[in-house]
């Protein structure tokens, strides 16, 4: 009988490891290398051959926040086929929530925390109710997670229940982030109007501009990114991940085998918004500013381009894409500042036409060809 080996083959199909041993090694090695970089900033004095500037560390920390946001976007777009053009909103909300805590710790020369200036200008004597408890770090982080999560849940519930899909859904997300931006531009909203929050001084009592604080924020971001990657891998490798891909490929068919797509879409959509909010929260202390322009539609579209460039539907792709596009942006905006948007548009067109699977897809194709040639 051929039944037994047949069974073993099926068992191998059913129980695949979370990551292959090679992938685990690569993940650990990459995390380790990234973790060592701030040491090169702290240990070696400026001018030393191995010194890495504080600017570089801050830049990489920022890129990792973008990578986390891209990973979050890929969960909904690459796996469940839900294209969000409004993920910048969740990113900004996480940033604002964390920023509220930072604004409560402005500590003047006398060491007493004053109300932010934008509130004094409005001649407000007290913090509005929604600023309550934001002087507590833990509460601020609860907001970082809950505000984007709750907004995504409620918005997602109504959108998915009404079976709004495809381009209609994308346009609504775009409108949502635009509306929020207009709301946050108003001074009376209580979030500093178009200036937003800036001039932060301390976080948990540590000087926010100190090299050691910057390194700690960098490490926190790296840890968040690595954990989010593993979490995303757990989700996408589970049966739920396969259901999400079925939602992407044929949602109606899925209903007829007994799944209600609503709950699955809502789960991944909310998870994605939370991860994006965390990315925003880590971003704000590192760049030292958050304002409503983070909610502009352009930012959300840029996120989509990171994912597309790296390779949607792969988890490593968005991380690579966010790094590559932003690396290019950093160089471009200092060399030819006026032309960045044209370059970005060109990247999107070229990726769509020539690299539908992104950078990761290209690499996979090359590897496959090599193997065929060898064989």
């Amino acid at each position, binding site marked *: 009988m051929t039944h037994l080996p047949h069974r073993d083959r099926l068992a191998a199909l059913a129980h695949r490891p979370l990551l292959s041993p090679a992938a685990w090694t690569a993940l650990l090695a990459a995390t380790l290398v990234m973790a060592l970089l701030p040491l090169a900033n702290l240990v070696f004095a400026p001018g030393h051959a191995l010194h890495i500037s504080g600017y570089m560390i801050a830049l990489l920390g920022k890129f990792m926040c973008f990578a986390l946001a891209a990973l979050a976007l890929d969960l909904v777009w690459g796996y469940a086929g839900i294209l969000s053009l409004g993920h910048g909103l969740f990113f900004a909300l996480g940033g604002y929530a964390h920023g509220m805590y930072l604004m409560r710790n402005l500590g003047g020369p006398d060491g007493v925390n004053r109300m932010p200036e934008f509130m004094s200008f409005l001649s407000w004597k007290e913090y509005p109710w929604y600023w309550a408890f934001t002087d507590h770090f833990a509460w601020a982080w609860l907001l970082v997670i809950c505000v984007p999560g709750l907004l995504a849940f409620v918005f997602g519930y109504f959108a998915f229940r009404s079976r709004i899909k495809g381009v209609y859904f994308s346009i609504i997300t775009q409108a949502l982030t635009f509306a929020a931006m207009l709301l946050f531009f108003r001074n009376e909203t209580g979030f500093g109007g178009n200036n937003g929050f800036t001039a932060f001084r301390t976080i948990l009592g540590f000087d926010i501009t100190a090299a050691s604080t910057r390194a700690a924020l960098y490490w926190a971001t790296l840890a968040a990114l690595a954990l989010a990657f593993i979490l995303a891998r757990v989700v996408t490798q589970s049966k739920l991940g396969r259901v999400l891909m*079925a939602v992407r490929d044929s949602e109606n068919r899925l209903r007829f085998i007994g799944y209600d797509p609503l709950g699955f879409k809502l789960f991944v959509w909310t998870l994605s918004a939370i991860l994006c909010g965390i990315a925003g929260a880590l971003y704000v202390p590192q760049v030292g500013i958050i304002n409503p322009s983070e909610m502009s539609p352009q930012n959300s579209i840029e996120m989509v381009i990171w994912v597309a460039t790296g390779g949607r539907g792969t988890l490593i792709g968005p991380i690579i894409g966010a790094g590559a596009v932003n690396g290019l942006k950093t160089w471009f905006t200092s060399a030819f500042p006026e032309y960045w948007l044209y370059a970005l548009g060109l990247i999107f067109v070229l990726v769509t036409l020539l690299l539908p699977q992104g950078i990761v897809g290209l690499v996979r194709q090359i590897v496959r060809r090599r193997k065929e040639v060898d064989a």
Partner: protein
Amino acid sequence: MSVDEQQASGGTVSYGRVGTAGVDTTHGAILYLESITVSFDGFKALNNLSLDIGVGELRCIIGPNGAGKTTMMDVITGKTRPTSGTAFFGQNIDLTLLNEAQIADAGIGRKFQRPTVFEAHTVFENLELAMKANKGVRRTLFSRLGSEQLDRIADTLDVIRLGDQAGRAAGLLSHGQKQWLEIGMLLMQEPSLLLLDEPVAGMTDAETERTGELLNELRGKHSMVVVEHDMDFVTQIAGAGKVTVLHEGSVLAEGTMAHVQADARVIEVYLGR
């Protein structure tokens, strides 16, 4: 009556989890359609259609294009709501109150006219997704295949003869293989009632014959409704069972294949135009 009320009164209707135990078939029928009318902007796709399917029966439904065969399937599976009339699954489950996923979970499986498998998933994963299980979000996230479930997938792969294709993407299968995979997915749901919409459309003769064998193997284990154009195929699977002829949204004739073929009205509908 809402689902909750049904659960309270009828006992064990359950969606979102294992469901077939809840069907009350004590009167010997698994599906009752009574005076179903579906009108689209005044056009009656189904016109006062009444039909019942017995437990374990294999019923063939034939009829010219536009007779309402697919609309009838849509009503049974919750895709289309009837304008009037009642549709019951067993004695106790009112199909007009449930959505597609709840109906699928209650134990009605449907195979579509065009094969619709998840093309990016492997054959194995297609069967895994379809398998009867708790299909809630949390249970799905933490689901792990046990050896019993693995056996069931292996058995189904044998029945549909795709054992050596288990690891291939379903999109790479031939048309006939996709149709069988879809039948396999239906079987994994352990439905009490199987609806097959033109299962041999577009198949080669050999594939058609193999599909006939497959359905004959399943006869008696499941109640089945087969909608088909191909008369030879219907003759092959109908045997001494009942055949229903639909015409313009209602039942034109019902009886054995020989009986309906001799019916003057049926001949007129099929041959008179």
